[in-house]
């Protein structure tokens, strides 16, 4: 008897824990950010007891940074920011290794950064997933925002709302290793796909573990792939007049581009280790193992290669070669600051304060000055119209020239990438990784897979009207 009674008691106790547990964490899903901020507010209030009472509410914002790679100018800026905004405490944590891709997971887990800088493709996909805050209200009360190039700002306008504070516009082009070109007796850079293939062949020397072109097909594969599709005279998607999205993965141009990828692989002019991600490919290029690579033409990218061991004087640039369509295009995008979704208005406001501080005229000049001191001042298309790189110091003319040329043939990424990008990325990785598969079949398969996402996208577009 007693035994049964006790089992019953234990069971009830367990049930109680269960309900308490459920209730507790259900709430926590929505309130975590607020709770945490409140807690930390309490702490910091205790520390700064005797400071001015009239200050705005104390708030802590989380920022992601790679400790090993943060420029001194950023650290200095943050120190000044703390001094000028004592009510905002910066909580700096290490960026997850997956970088900005991890932001959505972090929002779900309630530990997202309050403000973060990312590239255009990522931003678009985040906007589509409701992961970013629209910033129109903030812009309205920030006079300094008039100094930002409206064209660059509107590149992040979706369904009538603006989402990002751009830093600069980037255009893509080719980097090449002048020394390896000279060794192979190549005197001019390729201007067509055929020439590109021939050049790559000449630059491939297996005995030296040297190959022609570092081709990125496995990490964000459609990012580079689209440029080849454009050159072949088509696109991966189509924007209908009413703003809705239509997939054209099976466009003959896409097939042509995929075939060219396979030709490059078959001719063995690309990396033999196909699992190399962008980082590995960058390293290969920097160490002189790869002779050509496709990347954004600007000072930051060049600095990246130098950082990895390249000699700046060995690096040259050329624009995207013409495809079978007789046309060449290249892709453009932008780096910009965004505010990941948060329910706490104070955090969002503090994040905005931080973003505008980090992108103020003075701080931008400081950043450029540091770059100049490190010897890597190069061409850039800044978003701020009141700062010019040429005011800071002399610019690399060769880079400026290729950047200007690329700018003329540049276009933004394929429409709706934010919604269907992950499908296209997987698709490119698949036709590249498994050369036995039928290209058209695979493309059709992924187009079908993405159908749901397209439907959701179009619903949102039509609703916003």
């Amino acid at each position, binding site marked *: 008897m*007693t*035994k049964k009674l*006790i089992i019953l008691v*234990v069971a009830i106790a*367990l049930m109680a*824990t*269960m309900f308490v*547990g*459920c209730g507790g*964490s259900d709430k926590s*899903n*929505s309130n975590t950010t607020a709770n945490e901020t409140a807690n930390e507010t309490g702490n910091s209030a205790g520390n700064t007891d005797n400071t001015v009472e009239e200050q705005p509410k104390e708030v802590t914002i989380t920022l992601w940074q790679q400790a090993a790679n943060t420029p001194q100018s950023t650290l200095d800026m943050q120190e000044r920011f703390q001094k000028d905004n004592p009510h905002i405490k910066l909580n700096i944590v290490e960026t997850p290794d*997956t970088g900005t*891709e*991890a932001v*959505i*997971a972090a*929002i*779900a887990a309630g530990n997202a950064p309050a403000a973060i800088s990312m590239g255009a493709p990522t931003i678009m996909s985040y906007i589509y*997933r*409701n*992961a970013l805050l629209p910033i129109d209200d903030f812009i309205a009360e920030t006079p300094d925002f008039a100094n930002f190039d409206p064209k660059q700002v509107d590149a992040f306008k979706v369904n009538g709302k603006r989402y990002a504070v751009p830093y600069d516009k980037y255009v893509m082009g080719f980097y090449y290793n002048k020394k390896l070109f000279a060794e192979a007796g190549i005197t001019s850079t390729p201007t067509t796909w055929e020439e590109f293939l021939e050049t790559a062949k000449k630059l491939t020397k297996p005995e030296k*573990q040297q190959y022609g072109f570092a081709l990125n097909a*496995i990490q964000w594969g459609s990012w580079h792939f689209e440029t080849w599709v454009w050159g072949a005279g088509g696109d991966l998607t189509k924007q209908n007049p009413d703003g809705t999205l239509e997939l054209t993965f099976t466009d003959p141009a896409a097939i042509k581009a995929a075939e060219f990828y396979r030709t490059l692989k078959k001719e063995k002019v690309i990396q*033999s*280790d*196909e*699992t190399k*991600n962008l980082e590995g490919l960058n390293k290969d290029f920097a160490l002189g193992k790869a002779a050509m690579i496709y990347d954004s033409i600007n000072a930051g990218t060049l600095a990246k290669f130098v950082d990895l061991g390249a000699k700046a004087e060995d690096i040259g640039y050329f624009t995207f070669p013409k495809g079978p369509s007789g046309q060449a295009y290249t892709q453009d995008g932008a780096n910009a600051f965004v505010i990941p*979704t948060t329910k706490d208005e104070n955090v969002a406001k503090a994040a905005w304060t931080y973003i505008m501080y980090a992108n103020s005229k003075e701080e931008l000049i400081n950043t450029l000055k540091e770059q100049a001191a490190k010897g890597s001042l190069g061409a850039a298309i800044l978003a701020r119209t009141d700062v010019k790189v040429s005011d800071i110091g002399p610019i690399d003319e060769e880079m400026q020239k290729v950047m200007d040329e690329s700018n003329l043939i540049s276009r933004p990424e394929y429409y709706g990438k934010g919604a269907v990008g*992950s499908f296209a990325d*997987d698709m490119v*990785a*698949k036709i*590249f*990784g*498994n050369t036995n598969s039928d290209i058209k079949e695979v493309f059709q*398969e992924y187009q079908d*897979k993405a159908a*749901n996402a397209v439907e959701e996208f179009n619903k949102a577009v039509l609703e916003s009207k």
Partner: protein
Amino acid sequence: MKASTSSDYTVALNKKRQLETYHIKKAITPWLFLLPAIVTTFVLRYYTIFQAFRISFYQYDVSNPPGRFVGFQKFIELFKNSDYWQAWKNTIVFLGLMIVLNFFVPIIQALLLGEITKLKGLFSTLYILPAVIPLTINIALWKWVWEPEYGVANYFLKIFGAEPVAWLSSSQWVKFCIIFPGIIGGGFAVLLYLAAILAISDDVKEAAKLDGCTGIKRIFYITLPNIKFIILIQFVLTTISALQLLDLPFQFTDGAPAGASRSLPLFIYHYYTRNYDYGQGSAAAMTLMLIISIITYIQLRLNNQESE
């Protein structure tokens, strides 16, 4: 004796009460022992898995969790997803490889060590040393061993006149490359088996010898049957960990090339972190758990039947 002679009513009542409290105490005590573990297991496993189960019925919305209830739609989408089935195929291959490389090999190593008389101590010490190399370091090293251009693996192949292989980039080899380094981490398993082998009583061994049971024969008829139990335990644990394989493919290749090394747990992880579809990821997680439960149940059932 004393108690029975006493006829005083109150004394008897007291005794009864004492006996009752004794019984209650006796009944409660085990549960007090069990309570901490029951509660923590419940909170950290049963509650969390229930949450995951719940999420699998939602179109998850990060800014407004859990989002829209969609019933079984996530499961239906999942079963239509060819990547999901490919991940299953990969997981099964991983399972097979782990059984061969991480389960059988330590048994063989232990059997061989059991035969050795001299240097046994040295050998077994050297076996456990590499087991303390942390996982990430091991992976960083083996990635370099498998590197197609500069790696040692292809170097040895070329010495023996074989064609170089792309290893981690080859969809045929990648799974092998990921599991193979596990061989060197099996040191503790080897010692467990060895302990069991050495625990076989001398009488049994002597009797076998007299019956003419030596060499390979002895292994099969005497040693193996006597360490059956620990083998079964290790087999079940290997199976479970093979089906839950996440760290290794994540750190080695993150699923490349073209998903050839994407185990089902990695598929789930990718759905969380790349596609941000928690509903779909959780749905896949539920199916994984179901299959693990079924396989484990069958394994244990078979063992029970055999021992009956």
